């Protein structure tokens, strides 16, 4: 996945300017920067929620003009800041909604066998994901009753149930305890190799631990990019970000 010279303007405000970055296949790319640096805007551009005013993107070497509802077909999944689950649906149904089955409307309405089968496959793969994350016990629970960390896992399971080749994680560690963050780090590491992960995160230890490369945004511009250690030692980054954080 490559971005070339992406720019986004909201009226007079420059949200992103000339952002170029490459997510290497199977790597974990961290995207960090102070609040308002444009990290989530970048994700929204990648998802087609915001049209960039300049620049271009490619996915697997092909030009990418993303439309949100076609993302899963392209193998791209995303989690949102916070939890973002469907409130009136159980944990299992939430995960199933991520793996929208291909059963046609008419066959589903008539309850044809093919639809019942795909329905069952959908349910089983969703259940398997919950089981993998050790939260199968919550499958019938509604989001409002879930502990925060479990809700986050359900959201992650929902994103992963399509077996995406690209996963965009928007602040997955937000609101989690140290122990839960360690669990998250383990999970991200297991994805490495099979899935290209773009990780927007404020939790520096997590970023430094799991990322292969890190790109730093500040006021919508890329100010540094490289291996985690290089970023840590980069004085410009310390000024813009770590300095502010400290």
């Amino acid at each position, binding site marked *: 996945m490559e971005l070339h010279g992406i720019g986004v303007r909201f009226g007079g405000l420059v949200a992103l300017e000339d952002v170029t970055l490459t997510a290497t296949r199977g790597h974990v790319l961290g995207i960090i920067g102070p609040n308002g640096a444009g990290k989530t805007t970048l994700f929204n551009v990648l998802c087609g929620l915001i049209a960039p005013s300049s620049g271009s993107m490619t996915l697997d070497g092909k030009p990418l003009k993303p439309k949100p509802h076609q993302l899963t077909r392209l193998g791209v999944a995303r989690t*949102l800041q916070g939890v973002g689950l469907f*409130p009136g649906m159980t944990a299992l149904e939430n995960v199933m909604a991520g793996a929208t089955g291909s059963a046609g409307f008419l066959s589903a309405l008539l309850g044809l066998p093919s639809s019942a089968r795909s329905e069952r496959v959908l349910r089983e793969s969703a259940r398997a994901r919950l089981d993998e994350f050790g939260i199968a016990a919550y499958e019938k629970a509604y989001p409002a009753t879930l502990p925060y960390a479990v809700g986050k896992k359900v959201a992650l399971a929902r994103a992963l149930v399509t077996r995406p080749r690209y996963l965009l994680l928007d602040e997955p560690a937000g609101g989690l305890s140290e122990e839960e963050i360690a669990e998250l780090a383990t999970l991200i590491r297991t994805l490495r190799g099979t899935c290209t992960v773009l990780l927007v995160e404020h939790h520096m230890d997590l970023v430094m631990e799991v990322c292969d490369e890190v790109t730093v945004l500040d006021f919508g511009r890329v100010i540094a990019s490289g291996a985690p250690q290089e970023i840590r030692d980069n004085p410009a980054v310390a000024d813009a970000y770590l300095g502010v954080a400290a």
Partner: protein
Amino acid sequence: MERFAFLTFDGLANGAVYSAFALALVLIWRAARIVNFAQGAMAVAAAYAAYAVTSATGSYWLGFAAALAGGMALGVLVERGVMRFTSHSAPLNQVIVALGLVLTIQAGLGMLYGNEFRPVGTPFSRDAIDVGGVPLLSQYDVFVFAAVLTIVLLLALLFTKTSTGLRMRAAAFAPEVSRLLGVNVGGMLTLGWALAAGAGAVAAMLVIPTELGLHPHAMDLVFVTSFTAAVIGGLDSPPGAVVGGLLLGLVLSYVSGYLGSSVTPIAAFAALLAVLLARPQGLFAASKARQA
């Protein structure tokens, strides 16, 4: 006692129709946060389509199929052609547009078919069958129950057991998130309107022969009553709409039987008022609290 039994069955038969119509209102409310005030007029238009087809072919069932198909097509048309372009900035916008649709449809039907009542036949006898010497319900009442039950079961299956239903619910709860998960939110919305309008059309087909007959305003009072039923049920709850419809059917039947039919419309509003005062979130608000 005989009278009570008769009124109970009669009330349930009317209530079943209110249930189906209320269910249609709830479907659109859940999908789009719009109370479709045009639903009565849209359903009447579908019933006129049935009338035209039945008159031409002599077959009630071809007419019934035409009402269902025509109703769904009208639902798609209204959503794609009108509601999609209505601004969501204020809830009143959609209400005004829907009321405009009511006037347009009813005036159009009046111009095409005239403003007199047209008698409509039923496929089954409306003579009440005696059970133990008490005339309880007719074959047609049984047909009404069966038709409404079919609608309710099909919709329940669709929403709880199919991925299409799951996508429709997801799209209603959080359109943006659903879009990111690959759900065609616009398509789901159109489907919701089509299903609701189809259910509304069937309800009109069921109730119009039991009243004065086909007329551009034939569904006006049914709409008010069903809207009340939907509010009683909590507006957000499909089971609530069904129970609300049946309850209201019973209450109105007892009122009309014991106090006189002129009191019935007032009783509908009194029931609405009572629910809004005592339990404004509706009787079936549990599911709503769960969503919070």
